[in-house]
Every structure is written in C-alpha cells, then in structure tokens.
C-alpha cells in the first residue's frame, strides 16, 4: 500500500486528536549546554529566553562539568568516535570492561553489563532470565520501560499497590507455587519523588523466597550517604539481586544504562538480552565521560551533599509558602495542583517568570493528580532557588492556591 492520502489522513487525525485533548508534546530548543541556567526557544524559532532549569535529571550537575567534558574529549582522541559494532562482535573496548568493573564496585554488586540505555536494560533483562513458570510482581508506579520489559517476557505478571507492603505480601503468598518470584520496583519513583521501602521489600523477599529487582535510575549517584543508591539508603547493599540504572541522569547525563547484580544474571543478559545483542555498543566518548564521573563522585560526597541541602531548602520553602508537595527524600519534588489545566497554566506563568518546570497530568500521572514536577541539582546555587521560589509564590498567589487544602483547590478548579 502506498503512503496515500487515506493513510496520511489516518495519522493527521490522530495527531489532531492529541492536540484537541491537550496532550500533544512540543519540544523546546535548549540553545546552551545543560545547566541550572539555560537559554530556551519555546516555541522553537521564537526569541531565546534565559531561564532557571527546574526540570533536568542533572542531579549532580555533572552534565557539563569541565572535568567530564575533558575526559570525553580524551576518550574521543584515544578510542575514537564510534565502534560500528555490537558488543560481542567487535564493539567491546578495554574501557567498556573498565566501566563495567567500576560500576560493579560503585553499586556494590557482583557484576555489571552495559546497555545502550536503561530503557534497553529494562526491555531486555526479564525476557533473558524468566520463563512462563515464573512470576513478576511489580509496584504499580514503576517506569514505563519496566512495563514494556515485562510485556516482552513470558513470565506471568502481577502488581501491587504503590509501596503497599501488605498488598505485596498477599501477592507473594498467592504465587508460592511458581518456580521463581521476582519483586520489581523503582528505587526512587520518578513522578512522586518517594523511595521504595527496600528494607521491607528485602525482608519479604527473604520470607517468601523471591528475587528483588530495582530500577535505581533516579537515585544512583546521590541517594544514600555515599550516593550508591536506594539500597545504600536502606542498608541493604549486596542484597538486591538486580539493579538497573542509567548514565543519563546523575552520572553525567549523556546516555547508556546497565544491569548490575548477581553474576549469573549478568552473564545470562550477555548471552540472551536482545537490546544488548542487537544494538550498538555505548560510544567510547560516553564511556570515558562516565568513568570520570564515577571518579569524581567516589573521591568526595560534596556534590550529593550540596544536592541534599538544596533539596531541603526547596522542600521547606515550598511547604512554608503553602504549596502541597509530595513528601519524600529525593531531589524530585512534585508540587500538587490536581487539575490538569491548572498545571499547564501554572507552568506557563512560571516560564514567563523565567522558571522552566513542566506540568504533568493524566495519563502520565493518575487522573486528578496533576502536578508540576520540580527537580533539584547540585548545579543550583542558592540564588537560583530563591528566585524560583519567589516566582512560585507569585504564581501561587495569582491562582489563590497557597495554604489551600487539596479539597479547596479541587473545589475551585475541578479534578
């Protein structure tokens, strides 16, 4: 069938439908390296505007750090631009093995395998190690990439209410007749900014003979005293069977991800995980950058400590001003607005005030739980946060939501 008028109309109609529902995503052009202050064109082609960035996953502020950029340059010089190969043909360099070793050491696991992204790690890992005799029991708020990975796997899937340990226990009891049970959770939840109760989860896993899988993408590098992640925070280092994480957030923010954990599981991924087997190797320039990132954060906790201070300041500032935020320990701080249109209006007004933050609503978050997700960085200085807070307060006053309860906001703006 040719790409005729009928086919074209099929797609234009669907795109128009997204626009009319107000869920059509538009890109904004950042005309600068990633940082706490950036120049943005929105819409693309319009005049550039200087804004404070409150929506990057640049938790440790290393995305454009001079040492990381320098290491990447050196990587380019000594190991070239690309490998033109998957890992197992001729795409594994000495530096890929070195990065896998360093990640293993940092995460406190047995072995690590790099993937082109954490999305790929999550898409490939379940299918590589589980069969129809097994069951995967996932927290209902896990990242979309985990859901995709579970869909690709023949094991039965089930889920438990977000962070509800009693519900998880029920499910573990229900599935005692399976060969293997795997509890699946994010470490830090990307939309809510809370942490999985890994101490309790490990306890239940031991009681009901289950493995534990954690996607720690939003925690690796800064959660826990030395930034190793959610398992360090809860004192269960070495007890998580599989950790997937990304190099695309705190660890330099370029791209790449990994599966880290029990050595047999990592080896199974090397043999069977399709996104690993059939996708290009991580580029040398990124590998060298990531190695330098691990070096920086292993020699000092200065950056994660600063992020922790920034997060405390920001959470307190918003709470004192009368906003409703989701409680949590992470650098993800959702400001609850409940109504979808209100979240878009507030984001727009914040942008006019020079603050770049994004409003999320259904289907990204549950209906009636629209919010502005703010994210802190070690690259934020106190003056950035003070300015951002002043803008939030100004806009909050305009919409008369400061000091209001959830019910009062819903009564005024609807669900």
């Amino acid at each position, binding site marked *: 069938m040719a790409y005729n008028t009928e086919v074209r109309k099929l797609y234009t109609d669907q795109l128009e439908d997204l626009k009319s529902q107000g869920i059509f995503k538009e890109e904004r052009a950042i005309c600068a390296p990633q940082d706490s202050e950036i120049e943005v064109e929105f819409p693309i082609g319009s005049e550039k505007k200087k804004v404070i960035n409150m929506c990057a996953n640049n938790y440790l502020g290393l995305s454009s750090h001079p040492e990381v950029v320098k290491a990447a340059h050196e990587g380019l010089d000594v190991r070239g631009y690309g490998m033109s190969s998957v890992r197992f043909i001729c795409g594994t360099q000495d530096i890929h093995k070195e990065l896998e070793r360093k990640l293993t050491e940092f995460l406190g696991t047995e072995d690590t395998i790099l993937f082109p992204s954490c999305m790929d790690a999550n898409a490939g890992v379940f299918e590589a190690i589980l069969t129809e005799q097994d069951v995967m029991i996932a927290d209902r708020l896990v990242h979309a990439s985990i*859901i995709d990975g579970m869909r690709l796997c023949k094991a039965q899937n*089930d889920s438990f209410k977000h962070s509800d340990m009693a519900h998880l226990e029920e499910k573990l009891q229900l599935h005692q007749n399976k060969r293997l049970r795997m509890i699946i959770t994010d470490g830090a939840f990307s939309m809510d900014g809370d942490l999985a109760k890994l101490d309790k989860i490990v306890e239940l896993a031991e009681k009901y003979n289950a493995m534990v899988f954690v996607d720690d993408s939003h925690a690796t590098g800064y959660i826990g005293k030395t930034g190793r992640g959610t398992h360090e925070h809860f004192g269960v280092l070495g007890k998580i069977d599989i950790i997937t994480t990304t190099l695309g957030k705190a660890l330099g923010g370029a791209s790449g991800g990994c599966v880290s954990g029990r050595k047999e599981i990592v080896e199974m991924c090397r043999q069977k995980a399709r996104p690993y087997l059939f996708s290009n190797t991580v580029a040398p320039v990124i590998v060298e950058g990531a190695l330098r990132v691990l070096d920086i954060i292993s020699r000092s906790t200065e950056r994660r400590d600063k992020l922790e201070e920034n997060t405390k300041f920001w959470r307190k500032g918003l709470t004192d001003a009368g906003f409703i935020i989701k409680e949590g320990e992470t650098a993800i701080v959702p400001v609850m607005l409940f109504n979808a249109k209100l979240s878009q209006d507030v984001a727009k007004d914040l942008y006019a005030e020079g603050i770049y933050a994004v409003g999320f609503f*259904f289907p990204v978050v*549950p*209906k009636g739980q629209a919010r502005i997700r703010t994210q802190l960085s070690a690259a934020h200085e106190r003056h950035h946060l003070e300015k951002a807070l002043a803008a939030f307060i100004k806009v909050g006053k305009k919409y008369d939501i400061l000091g209001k309860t959830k019910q009062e906001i819903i009564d005024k703006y609807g669900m």
Partner: protein
Amino acid sequence: MASIKDTILQYVKNEYLDTDDDREITYDTPLISGGIVDSFSMVSLKVFLETKYNIQIPDAKASPEAFDSVNNIVNLLKEFDIKE
C-alpha cells in the same frame, strides 16, 4: 453468599483503590477508561476471575472494553456459563 456482581466489585475496590482513595465505584463505573485500573494492572483482575471461577479467559476476550466495568465483566462471565 455475595452475588457475582458484588464479589467482583469488592475485589476491584480492594485491589485498585488505595486506603485514602475515596472514589465511589458502582457496577457501571468505567474502570479502565475512567483511570481506576490501567491496562497493565488489569492482569490481576483476569487472574482473579480465572482462579475464582475456574475458567481460562483467552487474551482476545480479555479486552479493555470487556473489563471496563463490573457489569461488563459479569456479561463476559456469562460467555463462560458463570451466572447467578
């Protein structure tokens, strides 16, 4: 003994509503299109029905439409000769 309708309604409330979630669910409440059950966690409902009524629901029949309300589910069960 609770009716099939009420058994399913009770299961849906326990399985999908958080303790602080005060949304009202009736026999006709849209579960999937209403955002109460997402297509991912719909599986536990399917497993519950299969175990409870000792049936196998083929994937083709386990559509989001067929699971979209307690009444729809009751109609689906009729196809398997599960009736009051």
